[in-house]
């Protein structure tokens, strides 16, 4: 009799102790006690929204865009980009050999690492050799196997030789590889698992004061001795928020980035004098990917029928609320130099679509077809389904998560899918237009692509890149839908030097998060 309430009491005590223990364990955490604020007290401290993008060492960050940005605050590259384009960075100047394979860089003098050692040509040579050796772990930079040798000619000159000329190397390669301190990295065999304090010692404008993986928080402190100039902020803190607009409005954060239909949220800040808004290029595309390797979408006539059937303008207006623009059919963003200005289009014409449909192979009419998409683009899928139903071409919509979609695309186990990707400022993205599905096998296309990948001269390269876009527009392995607009809203009193980097930060990240914003 008595032990019944006792059992309950014990259970209760167990629960409470669990909770309190966890609480004490949490409260007494050493990871949360950071250092004291360094830097001038009059400079603002910025709080920015973001998720966990990995420990910001040059190897441990998650390969998707924002991860690289976090790392770039700590490390520098040989070249960089500002609001106009390519600029010298760690390298003051450079020369290229005739055939474009030998690059000689003259480094900026008196650059130091965060631990006080000097950055020399030896560090640069070591970096390129090391990255080449570790290239199987680097999923974000592709021409690493084209690095042949790297050697320090003297204290401030380094010569890097490539196995063959790489198109855009000054930007893609030399503008994205962070220079590592040799004295720290030469002893590290497994850079992916190196997660100590020493691997975030770089030459950049900030030092890392705190990183909490589960709370998805980064704290950067300004490094006053930065070789490019003093900092404009005392610290940068990245925190996780559920809703960027709400966080900005509540004063928790000082910046928010919106794209696509989220621009509606940006408009809420348009009339508020506390905030300013800048617009940037949307180097991203949402597209319909056809499985060209099997019926019925191996028939180009059917693909063109679908192109005429779909009302892309209506999708942009209705679903993205004009937060996007109807995409160019050549995939590359209209805001880059590579863009082909005069591509064929397929206007919304249901009659033409029906006519083409009747010409298409019989197979098209027999198979039950599925359009796969993630939940995020279910609306687009439904509108497309409605458009196709109108011309007498029924398809069913199946929704899965990103992993499922990705798996089906890579296996080539789909009919048609809605998927998107970025990197539209770089012609390298044209290598496989149906990425991540590898279903488009066109020998002519492949040859043209490989030819242009070798040319260092942009003007020589451009006609070939245009040809690739023409082929995509006419052959339609993908039907592009829209490019999102990108807006950044920020609290101007704290910092007003935000800008969008043409062709993206580093290897093409379309955020307005360039470290130049934070220094004088």
């Amino acid at each position, binding site marked *: 009799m008595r032990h019944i309430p006792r059992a309950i009491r014990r259970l209760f005590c167990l629960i409470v102790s669990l909770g309190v223990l966890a609480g004490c364990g949490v409260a007494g955490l050493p990871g949360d006690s950071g250092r004291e604020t360094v830097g001038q007290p009059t400079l603002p401290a910025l709080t920015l929204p973001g998720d966990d993008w*990995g420990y910001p060492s040059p190897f441990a960050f998650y390969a998707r865009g924002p991860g690289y940005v976090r790392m770039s605050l700590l490390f520098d590259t040989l070249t960089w980009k500002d609001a106009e384009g390519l600029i010298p960075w760690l390298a003051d100047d450079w020369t290229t050999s005739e055939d474009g394979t030998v690059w000689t860089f003259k480094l900026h003098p008196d650059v130091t690492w965060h631990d006080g050692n000097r950055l020399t040509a030896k560090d640069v040579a070591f970096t390129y050799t090391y990255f080449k050796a570790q290239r199987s772990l680097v999923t974000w930079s592709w021409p690493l196997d084209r690095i042949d040798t790297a050697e320090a000619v003297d204290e401030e000159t380094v010569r890097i030789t490539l196995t063959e000329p790489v198109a855009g190397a000054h930007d893609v390669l030399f503008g994205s590889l962070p220079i590592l301190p040799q004295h720290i990295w030469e002893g590290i065999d497994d850079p992916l698992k190196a997660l100590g304090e020493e691997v975030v010692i770089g030459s950049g404008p900030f030092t890392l004061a705190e990183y909490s993986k589960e709370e998805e928080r980064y704290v950067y402190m300004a490094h006053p001795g930065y070789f490019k100039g003093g900092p404009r902020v005392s610290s940068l803190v990245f925190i996780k928020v559920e809703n960027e607009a709400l966080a900005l409005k509540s004063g928790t954060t000082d910046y928010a980035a919106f794209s696509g239909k989220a621009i509606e949220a940006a408009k809420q800040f348009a009339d508020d004098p506390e905030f300013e808004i800048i617009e940037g290029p949307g180097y991203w595309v949402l597209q319909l990917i056809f499985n060209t390797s099997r019926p019925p979408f191996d028939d180009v006539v059917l693909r063109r029928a679908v192109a005429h059937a779909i009302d892309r303008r209506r999708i942009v207006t209705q679903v993205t609320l004009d937060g996007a623009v109807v995409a160019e059919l050549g995939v590359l963003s209209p805001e880059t130099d590579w863009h082909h200005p005069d591509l064929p289009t397929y206007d919304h014409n249901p009659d033409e679509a029906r006519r083409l449909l009747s010409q298409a192979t019989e197979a098209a009419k027999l198979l039950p077809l599925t359009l796969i998409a993630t939940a995020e683009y279910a609306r687009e899928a439904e509108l497309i389904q409605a458009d196709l139903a109108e011309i007498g071409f029924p398809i069913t919509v199946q929704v899965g998560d990103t992993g499922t979609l990705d798996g089906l695309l890579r296996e080539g186990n789909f009919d048609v899918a809605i998927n998107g990707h*970025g990197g539209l400022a770089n012609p390298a993205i044209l290598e496989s237009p149906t990425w991540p599905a590898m279903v488009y096998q066109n020998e002519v296309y492949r040859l043209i692509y490989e030819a242009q990948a070798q040319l260092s001269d942009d003007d020589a390269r451009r006609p070939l890149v245009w040809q690739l876009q023409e082929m995509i527009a006419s052959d339609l392995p993908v039907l592009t839908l829209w490019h999102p607009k990108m807006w950044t809203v920020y609290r101007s009193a704290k910092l007003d030097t935000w800008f969008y980097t043409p062709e993206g930060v580093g290897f093409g990240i379309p955020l307005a998060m360039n470290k130049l914003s934070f220094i004088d």
Partner: protein
Amino acid sequence: MSYRIAQYLFIIIVLLTLNFFLPRMMPGDPISYLVGDPGADAPLLMTEEMRQNLLRYYELDRPLGEQFQRYLSNLLRGELGWSISQNAPVAQVILGRLRWSLLLGGCAAAIYVPLGIVLGAVAAWHSTTPAGPAILGSVFFLGSWPSYFLGMLFIVFLSLKLGLFPIGGATSTLSARSGVLWSLVDVIHHGALPCATLVLGNLPGIVLLVHNSTMGLLGHDFVRAAKAKGLRQRRVLIKHVLPNAMLPLVTMIAMRLGFLVAGSVTVEVVFAYPGMGALITTAGIARDYPLLQGIFLIIMLLIVGFNLLADLLYTRLDPRVRATL
């Protein structure tokens, strides 16, 4: 007793196998996820060579049977492996999140269990006066909302408009402040709204059960006998009515505690709280096999553990049941 332990061991083995194979049955794989995010800003083509290199690096290129054996032998040594998507030891990732889930869930349970018992019993005792229905009405009204919606309302009114609480997170950046007391206050400040949301959502279940159990017993002889003996109301309630009402409650609480660790995903997402629930979702999307295996192991152990506890408590509490088991 040993028979029962054997049964539970069998369950654990079945679940271990399930936990190993289920994630691998999902379409997609962790290597593809590393560059395959459709939202990727600059997706770079992964060559077959690179893919094989990464598969080898993460030991995913071995035949499945060998991977399973390796997994089991590592498990016996207490090795949970390396998380592919988070690039950290699985144990560290889980522990980092588990403590927050335990904190939030534990504090919520420490509040809603006793509160629910009290409210349910009182409401039943006073069922004939307006107090009873009033208690029930308010508990059920507040607790019937989808938890993330309630949480969001809290955020909009108490955080955004009134600025009384932070909009999310578990702690603030403490580089300026330090010290255990400040940390504790900070944690409580951040945890108050999510905890309140969880409490409100879980109260109705407990209150309903306790109320109905109590109501069912109130008409019985022994209660009337106790009342006739002149015992005070509260004494009657606590010493005679309540214990009998406890049995189904014990089962329910034990089962809920098991799920406590899985975290309340939607509440964690709304408040950007670093709990296990949100981790499961991101690990699942990333198809992070080692991390998923580790998470499911912990959850499974806790669920099975609490079920075992429920069974044991049941035996102790009801001697007639003990006779058959």
